[in-house]
């Protein structure tokens, strides 16, 4: 990775993304080859392919990038990451963009971010995830009218005895909470 001469400012959007992503420097040498988009399972449903998104990051379209559904449609399959000829950690860049968007409430469609928040809500409270609680809480708050589409799934899970009715709590929940609280402070100081 060559030293890239810049005007010395780190306030541009691309630098911000790079600094927040481990190994992100290679974003500067993206070839725009499109291997990432061509490998992406969610590609057809994304506002912009990963390649397009990176061109937009280069050009400084901060809001458009953070508001787009692309990072939220990334399912972390790492296909792009292992195939990218320039070893750009694309999946991690998507995580960076999601975190930026959440911090600034910059997303149009809130389904994916709120799913993540519901999931983590249980983990932070109990130390374990809780599938039944998740399924109902998420679907009731998001699409009360379509909650019946969850019907066959949840009913099947229950009759097949594959869904727990109560969340489990770990013993060290207070220890975990202390760890996460400290982590959040540290993250905020970044």
């Amino acid at each position, binding site marked *: 990775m060559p030293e890239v001469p810049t005007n010395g400012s780190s306030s541009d959007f691309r630098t911000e993304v790079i600094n927040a992503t481990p190994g992100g420097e290679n974003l500067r040498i993206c070839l725009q080859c499109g291997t990432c988009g061509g490998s992406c399972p969610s590609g057809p449903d994304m506002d912009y392919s990963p390649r397009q998104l990176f061109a937009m990051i280069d050009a400084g379209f901060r809001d458009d990038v953070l508001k787009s559904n692309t990072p939220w449609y990334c399912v972390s399959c790492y296909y792009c990451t292992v195939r990218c000829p320039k070893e750009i950690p694309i999946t991690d860049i998507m995580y960076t963009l999601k975190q930026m968007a959440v911090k600034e409430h910059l997303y149009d469609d809130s389904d994916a971010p709120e799913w993540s928040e519901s999931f983590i809500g249980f983990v932070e409270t109990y130390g374990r995830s809780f599938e039944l609680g998740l399924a109902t809480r998420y679907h009731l708050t998001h699409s009360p009218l379509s909650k019946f589409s969850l019907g066959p799934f949840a009913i099947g899970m229950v009759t097949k005895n594959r*869904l727990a009715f109560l969340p489990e709590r770990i013993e060290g929940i207070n220890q975990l909470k202390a*760890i996460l609280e400290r982590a959040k402070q540290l993250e905020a100081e970044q």
Partner: protein
Amino acid sequence: MKYGYYPGCSLGKSAKPYDDSTKAIADQLGMSFEEIDDWNCCGATEYFSLNKTAAYALVARNLALAAKQDSLTDLVAPCSACYLNLRKTDDYMGKYPKIGDLTNESLAAGGLSYEPGSLRVRHLLDVVVEDIGFESISEKVTNPLTNLWVAPYYGCMVVRPEFGDTDPVDAEYPVTMDHLMETLGATVVDFPLKTHCCGGHMTQISSDTAFELIRQLLHNADESNADVIVTICPMCQLNLDAYQTQVNRHFGTNYKIPILYFTQLIGLAMGIPAKKLGVGKEFVSASAALKKIGLEVEEEPAPAGKRKKDDKSLPMPSGRVEG
């Protein structure tokens, strides 16, 4: 050999059959699993989207607990997402000192710490293939899976990212499970989509996206006449199995492909009773497929469906859910 065992949340309930079958084959194959005391959920792919420092700390609590438990050296995860998170956190803590420092500073608030590299994080498939090996497994096969056509499905998270220097499986076209299935006597079909993603949590967020990915996988397996798709991940199993009916409804298709865990097939080939392996809890029944290897499987009741038009029986008194 003794391994640290990180079951992850799904193995407690929705993927209980994976847990049961893993434990059922462990003894005969000479593996002993010691569960990590008071482990916590690894946060799947969700926490990294919200708060990275907290996400690494959440995963690292498990690494820290495992590393101080009974001189464990290897930590095994049967779930692809858990495996990826544990391995990535161990790798990044060492590779990026800033992540290592922030993570350990967070752990310190709970009186814990973790030295990256102190554990080898491994997926269950890797342990079975590398440590036990095809030869020892074939010696244990008493009921070969002759005539059973299987499509080995690896999904994405286990095969893909190259975290750490040893890379257990090929990222594009792995064959370790193919050979394992051959060892059990099964016929392995060519399954070009074997490492394609099933959509992960997209079933919850954008079902159109997820259903299309699931449809492609089912189509691919069906085209090659597979009797069963074999998986190594609870989420892959759930997506392909529990949503198969909805996918059929969505596309007007009629796939009926059972999805089993690789550990269940190992167990069946070693003559372990199906019930002990959790076989029968699938949504899409495996009984037709298993008849081909001479097994009758007792199933848990199917999900309550619509009552047939000509069904003259009386409705159930209470608790009956009409589909």
